[in-house]
């Protein structure tokens, strides 16, 4: 394990964690709305939010690139605000966030759907406002599912490649995450060095998915399915 390897690991964990924290409130809110909203547009909203799951990551990356380049719709605003996003670590965070968002939303939605809406009505008759009922009933009952979704989103962010390489490039020490470094090292024939990084990703991924699995299992046992 070289200092270089550890630097890449640290950058990867940092951007993935930051991306996950960033999407957490939005993911929980979208999951809640999808679980409770009974009106029109529900399927449409759900489909749009799930698109990053099915599109090639490079397609998402290209869309982001188009939006963020100087004369793109979002890039224009960013430039006026003096913010440089493309090919920076922040761009890696953005790519990771967009790609892992659907995982969080799906888990949060399922977790909220498992909360009996009558419990929320009951909380209302006992004096809770809708916000208090959400905080005191829905959130505590759904937290395991939300945490599982968060861990899965984090794992997805750790391995993000396609969208990242398009919006952030593959700049060693700046935007080069584990996935990008493995690609680059293999490309230039440093298979052994790439393999060391593979071992790191396996270890990281194992911990994250194992935690997700054990959380979901415990939840399933608790609700008796």
């Amino acid at each position, binding site marked *: 394990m070289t200092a270089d390897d550890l630097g890449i690991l640290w950058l990867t964990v940092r951007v993935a964690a930051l991306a996950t924290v960033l999407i957490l409130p939005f993911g929980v809110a979208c999951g809640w709305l999808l679980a409770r909203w009974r009106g029109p547009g529900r399927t449409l909203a759900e489909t749009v939010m799930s698109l990053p799951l099915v599109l090639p990551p490079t397609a998402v990356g290209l869309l982001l690139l188009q939006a963020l380049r100087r004369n793109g719709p979002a890039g224009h605003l960013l430039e006026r605000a003096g913010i440089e996003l493309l090919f920076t670590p922040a761009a890696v965070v953005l790519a990771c966030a967009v790609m892992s968002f659907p995982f969080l939303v799906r888990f949060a939605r399922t977790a909220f759907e498992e909360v*009996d809406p*009558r*419990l929320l*009505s*009951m*909380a*209302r*008759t*006992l*004096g*809770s*406002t809708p916000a*208090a009922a959400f905080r*005191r*009933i829905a959130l*505590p*009952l759904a937290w395991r599912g939300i945490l599982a979704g968060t861990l899965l989103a984090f794992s997805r962010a750790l391995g993000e490649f396609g969208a990242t390489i398009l919006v952030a490039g593959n700049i060693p020490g700046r935007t080069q995450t584990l996935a990008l470094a493995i690609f680059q090292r293999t490309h230039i024939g440093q298979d052994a060095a790439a393999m060391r990084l593979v071992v790191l990703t396996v270890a990281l991924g194992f911990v994250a998915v194992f935690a997700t699995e054990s959380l979901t299992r415990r939840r399933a046992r608790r609700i008796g399915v």
Partner: protein
Amino acid sequence: MISLDVALTLPRFELRVETDLAGGGVAVLGPSGAGKTSLLETIAGLRPRARGRVVVEGAVLMDDASGVRLPPEARRIGYVPQDALLFPHQSVGDNVRFGLRSGARSGLFDELVEILEIAPLIRRSPAAISGGERQRVALARALATEPRLLLLDEPLAALDVELKGRILPYLLRVRDALRVPFLYVTHNAGEAAVIAEEALLLREGSVVRQGPTEAVLAAMTGEHVDPAARYENVLAGALEPRAAGMETATFHAGGARLIVPATPTEAAPGRTVFTVAPEEILVSERPPERVSARNRLFGRVMSVRETPDGTWLRVHAEGIAWTVRLTHAAEEELAIAPGAGVWLTIKAHAFHRLA
């Protein structure tokens, strides 16, 4: 005083209830799907599409005419559903505390814990207590809001007879000690008789009968309003302390002195309640002689109703209105008409203790 004038469009019919209730205990009777639960949810503010006016003890909870519509959290209506709906992630104690308002009078929590005898359960999880205990906790939680009105949606229906025996006395105790007015949805005429002074009968969203419970039940007896309804005789009264070694005990209900099976003396709160199935009562024109049954009462037939599953009599005997079910053949042989004097014979062991 509870004043209702509400309408709610349901998939099969329109719920339309316009009535004034005195505000003690009110039984809401009617077949499944008559709109009973929808009515309770409308009062509690859980049906956003309901229209009309709800006034409870002077407080206007909803009034379309003046644009008033309090959200459920501002109505102070205690709701106890059939399945208790305790919050599964909280202990029993936290469930009860959930209902306490910031301005709640001190000592309320302890008082509820004492009245409903849930002290040993406080630290337990709702999943770890019995159905009857869950109902008691749900009742305590609803009462913790110091409600203007309690809504009880078949709180006993999911329990078997033995468990019912454990909750009914608490309901009576709450009624007598806390004096909270309540609406009590039930399929069981006997429960209605013992717990509510007033009753209303709903069918397809409309009130078809209303009045003193006894009168509504008398009119309902044998009427095919509800295939699931049970017309047990439910008697509330006082049990004499059991004499040592006796297998029977004396029970005073109405003006009757009845011989019932002695049950192990336990700290039963408030009144004692016994039930007798309508099939368990024998009817004769003359006083029965030398029979083993311990209870013989003389009474007058108030009504006779024929239904496909038998003939239903209402007999007034010793201050109690009894429901009796006979086979058609037996009824023909006896040729019973309203106003006739008859003897009722009931074995001690036909009495089952509910509370």
